């Protein structure tokens, strides 16, 4: 059983990394599945804490862990269909946005939500997803083009 010092350092890690890990997994898998995958990834982190501490990019690795476990255990779940998130009867966002995001390719959706939704920088997203920054740019560019078309939004908006 890990000692108190380990527990303390892991607690700090969860507080520091957990919120962003959750954001990225929600972007990939949807709200409920993304949060559940975050729990799974952090549980994996606890069980493999010594190994994780030596990793160069533990958050990025946990993203892969959570994504793969989320896909394997929650397959075929519909993404982004929570009516409360969509705004209910009085939509506060474009009602079709959730569906349009769900129809994007995963990399495009994650890149767009993290950058335009959660305010990450391109470099942060690239590091988290283990991609080149230019690749992230391309995902955002193509995804935004699809979103605009899907939502029939003018290119200048």
């Amino acid at each position, binding site marked *: 059983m890990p000692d108190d010092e380990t527990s303390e350092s892991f607690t700090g890690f969860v507080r520091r990394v957990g919120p962003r890990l959750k954001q990225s997994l929600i972007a990939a898998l949807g709200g409920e599945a*993304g949060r559940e995958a975050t729990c799974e990834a952090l549980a994996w982190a606890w069980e493999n804490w010594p190994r994780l501490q030596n990793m160069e990019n533990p958050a990025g690795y946990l993203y892969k862990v959570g994504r793969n476990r989320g896909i394997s255990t929650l397959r*075929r779940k519909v993404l982004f269909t929570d009516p409360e998130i969509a705004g209910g009867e009085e939509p506060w966002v474009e009602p079709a946005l959730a569906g349009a995001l769900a129809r994007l390719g995963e990399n495009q959706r994650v890149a767009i939500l993290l950058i335009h939704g959660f305010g990450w920088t391109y470099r942060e997203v690239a590091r988290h997803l283990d991609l080149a*920054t230019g690749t992230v740019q391309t995902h955002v560019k193509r995804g935004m083009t699809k979103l605009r078309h899907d939502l029939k939004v003018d290119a200048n908006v």
Partner: protein
Amino acid sequence: MSDLTTQIREYATRLDERYPDVSPEELMERLVSRDSQPRRRWNGPLVAIAVAVLVVLLGVLTYLASSQQGSPVVDQPVRPPTVPSTSVTTQEGELATDITAASTLPTVPSDPTTMEVDGLEPAEVRTVETSLGTWTTLRYDGELADMEALFNPSFRPATFETPAFPNPGLPEVDWHEHDTSGSAVVGQVAVSTASIGGTFDWETLGSRLPSGLPGWIEGERAIEFDGGHVLDVDLVAGAVEFRRRDTGELALRLVPPDASISAQQLVGEGSRVASGRWEPEIWGLFVDNGETSGWVEPPWSGRAVDYVDGTAFGDQFVLVASVRPDWEEQNRSSIIRIWRSIDGANWTETGLSFDLDGFARDLDVQGDEDSVSLRLEDDSGARLFVSTDGAVWDGVGVEIEGGVAAGPTRVSFGWMMVVEGDDTSCHVYISRDLRSWDSLQLAPLFDPPDGANWGCSIDGDHAIALAEGSYWIGGFG
């Protein structure tokens, strides 16, 4: 409605609030609860015996396979030879092409130093002689309000602009939808402004597509028809859409019959084969071979895949998938498998596979009239392969240091690829034939502050790099 990025931010904020962060306390409760559940126990001796039996069986099978005379070497992981990174790398016998003579470079600007972009004058102009011509890099210093604006075509220097798609002598086509009721093959596609956005069901799809036209396939993501007009192909919102390249105007929209199936990702692009992805591991392959069309089971069906990409080249199609042992396994490597097809419906695995160092980070396959390129990225970096028949693949003798940000992409003068080096610089690779490459630096070494945006990409015939306060555009001219 407020602008799209504001809407996305609002939506993300709601998501963030509705699904609260995982606290250490909650996590510990889950771990304790999990530990109290009965778990499958490790039966050491039994598993050890099973492993021993498997090892013996594998050894016997390997011996039998190796003892057969003349058996083809298939499914052997292939690592390409790597050579030290140089500015130009060649392979013997493959470079007989007169590159300079065959080039159709964009117009050379009379004075590139005067090219303003977004009101900014170039702060620096650099030229480099390459085997394809004179490459010019312009640096602009200034702030961009929106990084996406960098990719807006209006920011392109006019002198670098790729000529509009040539259709001289053609009258403006009246974009009206032909009456294609029945099964008669359509002589030309479609369309008038009045019917843009019209939908087509699968039953009449075969008669709607201009499959009988010569020169119908014009390369990746583009279809040429009726003497020169080009349509871009994309898969959006569950439909295959064809748009005029010059205006972006929607010309044809094909919608699958089952509205519950939402195709999300077009990976085999641009011709008569399209591949769609629905939920994470469910893939479909839409095929139009000129006679019949519809969704078929993809060759990788039943396997866990990370990435799939496909392309048409010559009269063939190639599909490449990164296959992993299983979804759960975190510590093993993926394998790249390749299939090819003539008709888009029947697929043959090439017999080659590439083992990766870890899981695939990205893969990209692009075809041309007579060749196809495959770029793989894994934990070791990026590797390039080229094939002229889809069956035999050669490792290209260019060592790519760093991550490939974009490409190799077909451009007007050949192929282009941009690479982000680990030293945070951007390098451009250009090639006429996919085998011989020139390498040059687009943006210099740069040490961006934490959180700064930095990256490079390809837009049209141009390579682009962006850093805080500066950006670079490179191209021929």
